[in-house]
C-alpha cells in the first residue's frame, strides 16, 4: 500500500499555458513540414513551391476574413450594446422585446442567419430618393453581426449586473439619472469585466467568418479551394489546408491567451 496518493511528496505546481504558445506553434509547423515532406522525396520541392506560390494569395484571403470580422464586430457591438441595456430595463416592454431578440439571434445557427440575410435582402435599398447599393460583402457583414449583437447584449447585461446593487443606490442617492449612473458610475467598472468575454466572442466571430465562403464570397477558404482545384493535385490539399488552419491559429490563439490573462487579473482583484 505504498502507492496511496497522500503518501507522495507534494508535486510542485507548474505554471500552465505561459510557455505553451511558442511550443504549440512549433508543433504545428513541424506537422506542416512533415506533411510536406511525407509526400515523398521526388515531390518534396513541388509542395514547397506550391506553398510559396499560393501562400501569399491565401494570406490575402485570410486578411479579408480579418477585415470582415472587424467590421462585423463593430456593427454587432453597436447593435448589441443598446440591446443589452434593454435587457436590464425596469419597464416590462423593452425588457421583453430585448429578451426575445437576444434569445432568437443567440439560438439560431450562424449559417442560417447568414443565409437569411444574403438571400432575403435586396441588392440595393431605396430610402426616399436615395439608392444605397448593398454588395454581397456588406450583407455578409450584417448577417454575421446579428448573432454577434445578441451575444454582445448578453455580455453587456452580465457586466452591468455584476456591479453590486449598492452602486446603483448610491448613485441614485446622489441624484444621478439612470443614464448618468450608467455612464459615470457603472460603465467604468463594468467595461473591465466585459472585455474578456467580448474578446472571446471576437475570436469566435473571426473563425465564423469562413462561413461567407459558403454563400459565395471570396475569402481565405475559397482561395484555398481554388488553389487546390487549379493545381489539380489531391496531395496538395493537406499542406494548403494546414497552412490556412495555421493562419487562423496564429491570429486567434494569442487573443485567447490575452483573454485568459485578463480573466486571471480580474479574479485576483476580486
Amino acid at each position, binding site marked *: 500500500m505504498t502507492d496511496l*496518493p497522500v503518501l507522495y511528496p507534494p508535486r510542485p505546481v507548474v505554471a500552465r499555458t505561459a510557455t505553451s504558445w511558442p511550443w504549440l506553434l512549433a508543433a504545428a509547423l513541424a506537422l506542416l513540414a512533415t506533411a510536406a515532406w511525407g509526400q515523398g522525396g521526388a515531390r518534396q520541392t513541388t509542395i514547397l513551391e506550391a506553398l510559396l506560390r499560393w501562400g501569399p494569395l491565401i494570406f490575402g484571403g485570410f486578411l479579408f476574413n480579418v477585415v470582415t470580422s472587424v467590421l462585423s464586430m463593430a456593427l454587432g457591438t453597436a447593435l448589441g450594446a443598446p440591446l443589452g441595456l434593454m435587457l436590464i430595463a425596469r419597464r416590462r416592454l423593452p425588457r421583453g422585446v430585448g429578451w426575445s431578440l437576444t434569445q432568437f439571434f443567440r*439560438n439560431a445557427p450562424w449559417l442560417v442567419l447568414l443565409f437569411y440575410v444574403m438571400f432575403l435582402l435586396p441588392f440595393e435599398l431605396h430610402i426616399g430618393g436615395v439608392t444605397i447599393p448593398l454588395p454581397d460583402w456588406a450583407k455578409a457583414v450584417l448577417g454575421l453581426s446579428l448573432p454577434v449583437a445578441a451575444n454582445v447584449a448578453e455580455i453587456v447585461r452580465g457586466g452591468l449586473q455584476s456591479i453590486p446593487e449598492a452602486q446603483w443606490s448610491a448613485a441614485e442617492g446622489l441624484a444621478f439619472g439612470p443614464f448618468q449612473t450608467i455612464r459615470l458610475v457603472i460603465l467604468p467598472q463594468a467595461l473591465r469585466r466585459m472585455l474578456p468575454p467580448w474578446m472571446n466572442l471576437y475570436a469566435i466571430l473571426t473563425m465564423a467568418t469562413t*462561413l461567407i465562403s459558403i454563400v459565395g464570397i471570396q475569402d481565405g477558404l475559397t482561395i484555398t479551394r481554388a488553389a487546390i482545384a487549379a493545381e489539380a493535385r489531391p496531395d496538395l490539399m493537406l499542406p494548403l*489546408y494546414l497552412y490556412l488552419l495555421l493562419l*487562423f*491559429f496564429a491570429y486567434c490563439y494569442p487573443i485567447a491567451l490575452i483573454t485568459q490573462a485578463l480573466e486571471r487579473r480580474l479574479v485576483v482583484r476580486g
Partner: protein
Amino acid sequence: MPAFVVRFFTWLNDAYGLNFSVFTDAYDGQRFLLGLWTTIELSVVCIVFSVLLGMAGAWLIGGPSRLGRAVARVYVQAFRNTPPLVQLAFFYFAIGGLLPQIGDGAGGREPIVSGFGWAVISFSLLAGAFNVEIFRAGIEAVPGEMVEAAESLGYGRFQLYRYVLAPLALRICMPALTNNLVNLVKTTTLAYAIAVPELLYATSQIWSEVLNVREMMYVLLAVYIALVAVLVWLMERWERALRLPGFVA
C-alpha cells in the same frame, strides 16, 4: 400531415402567395423530415462522442503523464482556435481524399468514411475540445478537501475520479456543458458544406426547386430554435434531477 394543416397552408398559398410547400406537398414534407432526422441523428451522435472525448481529455490533463497532458492540451488549443468550417474541409477533403476507396458491391466505388461520418468526426472533435476545458474547470472547482478525504480513505486515481470528482464536477459544469451542446447543435449546419443531407441542406434543395426561400427560411429558423429549446429543456431537467440538497456548485 393532418388534413386541416394541409388545408390551412393551401389556403395561405392561394390567398397570400405564401408557399409553405413542406406542409402541402408530401414529397417536400418527406424530404424535410428526413433532413430533420439527419440533423437530430448527427447531433445526438456528436453529443455522445464529444462528451466521451471531453472526459478522456480531462482525465489526461489531470494525470501524471507529461506526454498525456501535452497531447490533451495541444488537442484542445488546436481545435478551439481554428475555424470549424476549415476543420471540416480539412477532414473531408484533405484526409478523406488520402484514404482509399472501397467497392460498394454494385461495381461502383465509394469512400470508406461517408460525409456523415466525417461530420461526426469533425464536430465531435471540435465540441470535445471545448468539453475538455469545461470538465477540467469543473474538476478544479471541486473543493480540495474532498480529494484529500478520498485519498486518505485509500481511493486510487480511477476511484477518485469515478466516485468523487466526476459526480461533483458534472453538477458544477452543467450550465457550461449545456451551452456547448447548444453550440454543437447549431454547428451541425456546417455539414451543408460537404453535402450531408441534414436540415439546412434538405431545405435548400426544397427552396431552390420550389422557389420559396422566404417561407422555408422562416420554417428553418423556427425548427432550429425549437431544437435548441428542446435540448435546453432536457438539460435543465437533468440538472434539476441531479441537484444535491446542500451542495452549492
